[in-house]
């Protein structure tokens, strides 16, 4: 086969003056540098939080730091398992309460709401995301905590109060992303289901939710990330005791809240351990993002294989 004549490149074409050409190249590189600021940001966080926190892993020992069951900085005992446990308990409870609410709202928005109702609910969901966490915390502290205290025999500081507050806070994340996933299901699939005589509900749970499954799971994972990283709102309602709680209404602490509680006075190894906890949080949130990306790549490969 005869080789094709070489395609003239931008340089050889000379459609513009050399100065203009150089300017175009220069601008392109400037934009590339700006885009790389995001990468630089992640690397800087790694470097600076990592450098400060690494000795916590090195000197306490990675295993005894992560799985130590006692957090007692004044005696030099740095085990963050109670805090990891607190984080997981608070996150799971919030997911159990928040996910049905959020996915329900998403299904409502994409399948049931008339445009007029949608015009109220959709902005409301977005506004929920805009309210600062310190206001949620304040609301939880003043309103929710006494209610919880009435039903349990404590002061209302504990996981239960945090569950409800966090559940509200992760609703916007999960609901908007799930709604996007549901909306991207081709309308033909819906119509086929209705044409077979299915009710709206049958169409939703037999056709739409399976079709949008991966998108909804992504949304829940990102909601999880939000719940793990949330600081101020949780801080104001969990009671801040770095122990394994006796009940779901007893005071606990999470990784994020313990950092805020201890930072004002921590020094030396204690401070290092707090940065070590920040490394754990950072890696956890990056891990969840990586998981979402892997899943969407998996989904693309399924679809292209069809």
């Amino acid at each position, binding site marked *: 086969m005869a080789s094709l004549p070489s395609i003239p490149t931008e340089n050889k074409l000379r459609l513009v003056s050399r100065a203009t050409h150089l300017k175009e190249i220069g601008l392109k590189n400037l*934009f590339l540098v700006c885009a790389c600021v995001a*990468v630089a940001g992640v690397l800087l966080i790694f470097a600076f939080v990592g450098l400060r926190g690494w000795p916590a892993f090195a000197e306490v020992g990675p295993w005894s730091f992560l799985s130590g069951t006692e957090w007692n900085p004044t005696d030099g005992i740095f085990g963050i398992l109670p805090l990891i446990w607190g984080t997981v308990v608070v996150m799971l409870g919030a997911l159990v309460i928040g996910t049905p609410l959020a996915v329900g709202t998403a299904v409502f928005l994409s399948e*049931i709401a008339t445009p007029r109702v949608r015009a*109220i609910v959709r902005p409301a969901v977005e506004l929920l995301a*805009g309210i*600062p966490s310190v206001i949620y915390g304040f609301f939880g502290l003043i309103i929710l905590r006494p209610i919880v205290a009435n039903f349990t025999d404590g002061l209302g500081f504990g996981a239960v109060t945090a569950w409800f507050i966090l559940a*509200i806070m992760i609703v916007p994340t999960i609901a908007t992303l799930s709604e996007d996933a549901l909306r991207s299901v081709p309308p033909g699939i819906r119509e086929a289901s209705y044409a077979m005589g299915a009710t709206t509900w049958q169409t939703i749970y037999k056709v739409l939710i399976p079709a949008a499954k991966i998108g909804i799971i992504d949304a829940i994972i990102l909601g999880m990330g939000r719940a793990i990283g949330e600081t101020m709102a949780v801080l104001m309602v969990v009671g801040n005791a770095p122990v394994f709680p006796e009940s779901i209404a007893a005071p606990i602490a999470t990784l*994020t809240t313990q950092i805020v509680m201890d930072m004002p006075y921590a020094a030396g190894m204690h401070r290092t351990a707090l940065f070590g906890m920040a490394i754990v949080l950072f890696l956890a*949130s990056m891990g969840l993002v990586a998981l979402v990306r892997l899943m969407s790549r998996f989904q693309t490969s399924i679809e292209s294989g069809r």
Partner: protein
Amino acid sequence: MKKNIANAIALTLLWIAAIVTVAVLGTVILYVFVNGIGELTPKFIFTWPEGVAAEGGIWPTIVSTMYVTVLAMVIVTPIAILAAVYLAEYAVQGRLVNTIRFAADSLASVPSIVMGLFGLALFVEAAGIGFSMLSAALALSFLMLPIVMRTTEEAIRAVPKYIRWGSYGLGATKWQVVSRSVLPASMPRIVTGIILATGRAVGETAVVIYTMGQAINLPITLFDSGRPMTVHLYLLAMEGINLPAAYGTALLLMILILTFNLGARYFLRRNRKV
């Protein structure tokens, strides 16, 4: 008809989910509004906190919040827009673009407390800037960067191809196409994205508490420390000594955020081109 009953029950539950979501928002807003409205006097807004229980006003905290937010916006806007221009107009799909997107997604999900400690370690301590408006604004700009980048990229991608073809047809270079046709067409959505990210920065607490400090101070230069409204509200609420001032601060904060959010929406509806 069994399936119709199931259908009716399920649809009712979905309605309830949506109603609960809206009701929660309504409750939070109404609660803060009802309790805080009595506090919002010119004296509260324009005077300084005094005494152990922070009686009086919250003026320095309002100035600190505004100062740091505007500064962060000024820092992040050019970088984020140009980065988005690269991703949407110049980049060829490949490993580099994947890395940039992964980094932006990671940055968007970094817990705010981690961002706060990062700002403390890098800007306050290593760079020697100290607790200051500049440190806080730099840390906040890393938080805003992925948000503005994403909304800007979506805005640019929504500009129809034929607008670009028209420009190229007239002999424009790539930069001329981008700067004269694409960016002006997508500007309303870009501005909306910036306003929304700014609203996020106003409500941020954990980042600024470790980069700005907590001292009640009226910031003048970039290197002055201060106490933003969110931190003030947190301290008042946790100490529990001056709840009226906490309600007033919460309401003012809420009004600011709602203004940003609703303002962004209104602006977009008025100016939407693509």
